[in-house]
């Protein structure tokens, strides 16, 4: 059981990355982004592309860091992939959602458009990489470390937790201490007042998409490192992402973190008595329960 919880925390931290991005987009732009799962997929595959094609072309060696399953290639590909998917998210906004905003379209059209974008991204990945599962490092043995208290965890996974912690801490500082971060929080509170104060809300929206996309990409890459890559990987995360976001209260970054960890642990623990393929269903049941019992989430109910 302890192992399930540990792995649940690892999985949950991946969900958190996506959920934080989703909650930012949902909270600031009021947009239920159905393409968010596919941002994860896009991140994973873009890192694959960079690590295997681009960086080998440049001549970076394909070695590993110690007992980790990746080396310099992934270390370089990681941030670039985050940036790439951040750009993809911004481009989607410019090409699709901004036009809908200008026309004053209702929220359902945005959601529908993001659903279309989700399929478009997924189809592109299917076209470029096919339907088989892929690995960053095929055939690698990944032994687990034995830590005190009988905890078994892979070195990869320890690093993943550190990466997630780093990203979340960076985001925290960004939102709390920088002018743009504060403006994003202000816009999430009250977009009309932000406009009245002269804040350029289009720029805020651009930043939100960039950060949301980049975080989702990071989650996808980590999942790819830990498990595998598959064109459906992100879509399978969509329900857990929304469940985590809603559980943690929409717009609340720390709630998304807690929500992600909770969903991750719940999903893993459920494999003790359910088939692993039912994990998305577990997340879904939790989401329905939250919506019935406390739809405003853990931190909700205050000054909205």
């Amino acid at each position, binding site marked *: 059981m302890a192992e399930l919880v540990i792995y649940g925390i690892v999985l949950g931290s991946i969900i958190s990355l996506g959920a934080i991005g989703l909650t930012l987009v949902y909270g600031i732009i009021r947009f239920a982004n159905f393409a968010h799962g596919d941002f994860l997929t896009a991140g994973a595959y873009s890192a694959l592309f960079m690590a295997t094609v681009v960086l080998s072309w440049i001549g970076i060696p394909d070695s590993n860091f110690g007992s980790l399953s990746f080396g310099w290639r992934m270390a370089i590909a990681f941030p670039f992939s985050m940036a790439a998917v951040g750009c993809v998210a911004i481009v989607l906004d410019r090409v699709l959602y901004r036009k809908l905003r200008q026309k004053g379209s209702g929220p359902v059209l945005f959601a529908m458009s993001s659903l279309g974008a989700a399929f478009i991204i997924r189809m592109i990945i299917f076209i470029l990489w096919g339907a088989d599962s892929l690995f960053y490092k095929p055939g690698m043995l990944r032994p687990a470390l034995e830590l005190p208290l009988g905890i078994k965890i892979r070195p990869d996974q320890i690093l993943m937790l550190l990466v997630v912690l780093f990203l979340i801490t960076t985001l925290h500082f960004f939102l709390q201490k920088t002018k743009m971060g504060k403006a994003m929080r*202000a816009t999430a509170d*009250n977009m009309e007042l*932000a406009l009245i104060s002269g804040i350029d809300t289009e720029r805020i929206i651009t930043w939100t998409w960039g950060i949301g996309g980049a975080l989702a990409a990071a989650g996808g890459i980590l999942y790819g490192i830990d498990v595998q890559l598959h064109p459906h990987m992100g879509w399978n995360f969509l329900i857990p992402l929304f469940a985590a976001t809603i559980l943690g209260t929409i717009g609340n970054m720390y709630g998304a973190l807690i929500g992600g960890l909770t969903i991750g642990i719940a999903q893993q623990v459920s494999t003790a008595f359910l088939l692993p393929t039912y994990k998305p269903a577990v997340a879904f049941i939790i989401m329905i329960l939250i919506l019935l019992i406390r739809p405003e989430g853990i931190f909700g109910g205050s000054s909205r």
Partner: protein
Amino acid sequence: MIILKAEDITAGYTEVDILHDVHIRVRSGEIVSVIGPNGAGKSTLLKTIFGILKPRNGNVTLKDEDITGLKPDRIVRKGISYVPQVDNVFPSLTIQENLEMGAFIRDDDYSQRLDEVYDLFPILRERSKQKVGQLSGGQRQMVAMGRALMLDPQVLLLDEPSAGLAPVLVSMIFEKIKEVNATGVAMIIVEQNAREALKMAHHGYVLAMGKNVLDDKGEAVLANEEIARLYLGG
């Protein structure tokens, strides 16, 4: 000297117009109060001046510049600030952060201005790190005004500043408004509390059914018997 004027304003949110050929003039450093019954279009007038609403007809002029139809983010750069009636603060941000957001478009060092605003509202300085959502109604209203003042506007538009406040806070807010005005900021105040609003006004406008009914010096409007009967009963 007339600093802001709106002439022949016809405007509305949908096909139905709320304002019909409305005019208003503000002299520099003046308090202009706009009173009238509910639905008269007072808030709509402010929104039209500030660019939230585009008038179907008429124009708005700041000093000599035509600012009709400009969007709020441009208007705020010209020197007009607006305090909405509701949802006029960022609740999850601290007092300090709310004020910082007021100064968002400034690239320079505005710490002196921040001090000046805190001087106007000392209680905000004490609690600057508190989240605004936790403050009382009167304190929130002060934050709302403080945010709008961070850009040192020439004209401040206030939409029902005393709305929802307990009577003792109402006088406090009106005192604050006078203090702010004393620093040289012209103001247009839309108010339900017509008597108080006219008492401190240099000039008063009465709006009803989207049209000008009367405008005169503040005390003249206050003394007008018919106005008193129709609109100052409460």
